[in-house]
């Protein structure tokens, strides 16, 4: 973009072009640094896994309780080969994503209303806060009762998990929006809806995104409770099944799959976060 300065007079279109070429160059260095990030990020997990394998081989950890990483890998590979792995992963991912979308949408709507209208806050917030500390397992019998054991109850269960952190973060994000910026919106005659869309949501985006990431994490956690409701497939099912059948390698395989897929979905949200918060005036680390 060094030429841009000399071509100020050439103006607008030019600027955009040079920006595009600048982006290309940037994306290359991005790739390198992504690789580096992944490498550095793997140091500790890899070290832990190696240590675990060594301890297992040395017989320090009993294999019938904590099988070696290679045993677990074998298990995952064999599940992949007989095809059951994809079924588990897919159905759980589907449930989490569906629940995530529903929970997030519900939280955005209620969170915005509560953040915006004092009356709504006074009516709803206390109840929501009370519900927030009810454990996922406690909902299981109620959900079975209300919705049976189909997909509805499972997805709803996950949506409940996702709802609370998103709600909480949206609500507080909105409260934390600088009055000064809201006033700008008001001066331009924005109505409440536009104000939420054009000022409040962007301004509370950092908080909102963290809420979404927290919520997604909770979605993964609620899967187990969800899949206690008559599931015969899914990672949560796999976990409970492994526990009921004393199969430690199944348990650990499911834990590791949870970690990997959870991390992947979180990483997508983190990318979105980095993209959409590039405007923040952050300190360079």
């Amino acid at each position, binding site marked *: 973009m060094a030429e841009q300065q000399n071509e100020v007079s050439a103006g607008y279109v030019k*600027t*955009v072009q040079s920006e595009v070429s600048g982006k290309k160059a940037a994306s290359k260095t991005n790739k390198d640094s992504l690789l580096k990030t992944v490498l550095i990020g793997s140091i500790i997990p890899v070290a832990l896994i190696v240590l675990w394998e060594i301890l297992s081989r040395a017989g320090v950890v009993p294999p019938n309780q904590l099988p070696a990483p290679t045993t677990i890998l074998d298990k995952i590979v064999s599940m992949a080969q007989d095809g059951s792995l994809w079924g588990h992963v897919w159905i759980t991912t589907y449930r989490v994503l569906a629940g995530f979308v529903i929970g997030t949408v519900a939280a955005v709507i209620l969170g915005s209303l509560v953040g915006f209208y004092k009356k709504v806050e006074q009516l709803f917030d206390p109840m929501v806060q009370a519900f927030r500390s009810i454990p996922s397992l406690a909902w299981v019998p109620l959900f079975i009762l209300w919705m049976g054991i189909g997909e509805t109850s499972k997805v709803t269960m996950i949506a409940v998990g996702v709802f609370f952190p998103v709600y909480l973060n949206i609500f507080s994000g909105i409260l934390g929006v600088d009055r000064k910026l809201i006033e*700008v919106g008001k001066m331009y005659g924005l109505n409440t809806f536009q104000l939420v869309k*054009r000022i409040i949501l*962007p301004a509370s985006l950092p908080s909102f995104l963290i809420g979404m990431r927290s919520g997604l994490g909770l979605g993964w956690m609620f899967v187990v409770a969800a899949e206690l409701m008559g599931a015969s497939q899914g990672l949560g099912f796999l976990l409970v099944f492994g526990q009921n059948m004393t199969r430690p390698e199944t348990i650990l395989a499911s834990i590791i799959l949870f970690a990997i897929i959870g991390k992947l979905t979180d990483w997508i949200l983190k990318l979105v976060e980095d993209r959409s918060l590039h*405007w923040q005036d952050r300190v360079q680390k």
Partner: protein
Amino acid sequence: MSLALRDVSRTFNGTTAVKNVNLEVKPGEIIGLLGTSGCGKSTLLRAISGLDSEYDGEIEINGTVSKEIHDTTGFIFQEPRLLPWLNVLDNVTFGLTGSRKEKENKAIDYLESVGLRGKERLYPRELSGGMAQRVAIARALVTSPEILLLDEPFSALDAFTKMQLQDLLLEVWKKYQSTIVLVTHDIDEANYLCDRVVILRGQPGEVDREFIISQKRPRDRGSEELAHFKSEILESLDLNK
């Protein structure tokens, strides 16, 4: 549009910031509001704009008394208040409606006028203080508001750029016959731009004096009449008096 303040006072947590301000502004008039720091100038502008409705007294805009926000009012705040997630261009088009192309063309025109052509894609954090202020000016002027409330709009600009933008303001005023209330600390600026200069004084701020400047525009910045006003205004600002 005409504007009238009747006995406007504003109290924050028991401390009165401005007291009993009365002011009649005719359509198309440019009023300068001067006063020591903290005497309530911004408070008054906020009351006029409708952003603050907890004042006492009445504010009448074009014959109707209301505490609502008029969307034909433009406000340049004391700080730039750019939306940090929008780039310069999007900040300027923020208040516009219409097709994207139209909005952008209008915005680019004004960015040209404030000397920021070529900076459309920068984000607020990449702007210098004066550049941010100029973006804010472009954002307010581009909507061609009927009432313009300006809170020290040119304070962060160098002398030369300041003069250019004062002339830009007059151009806009001529074209749209906006009614303007201008808060400023620059007496030369008030003299150059205003039909009338109102001096607030004290804490709580009260209207102390009014100067009517009837000289025709364009005015000569170095004229003797203005120099005379200047020393008088300066004197009435003196706290020790």
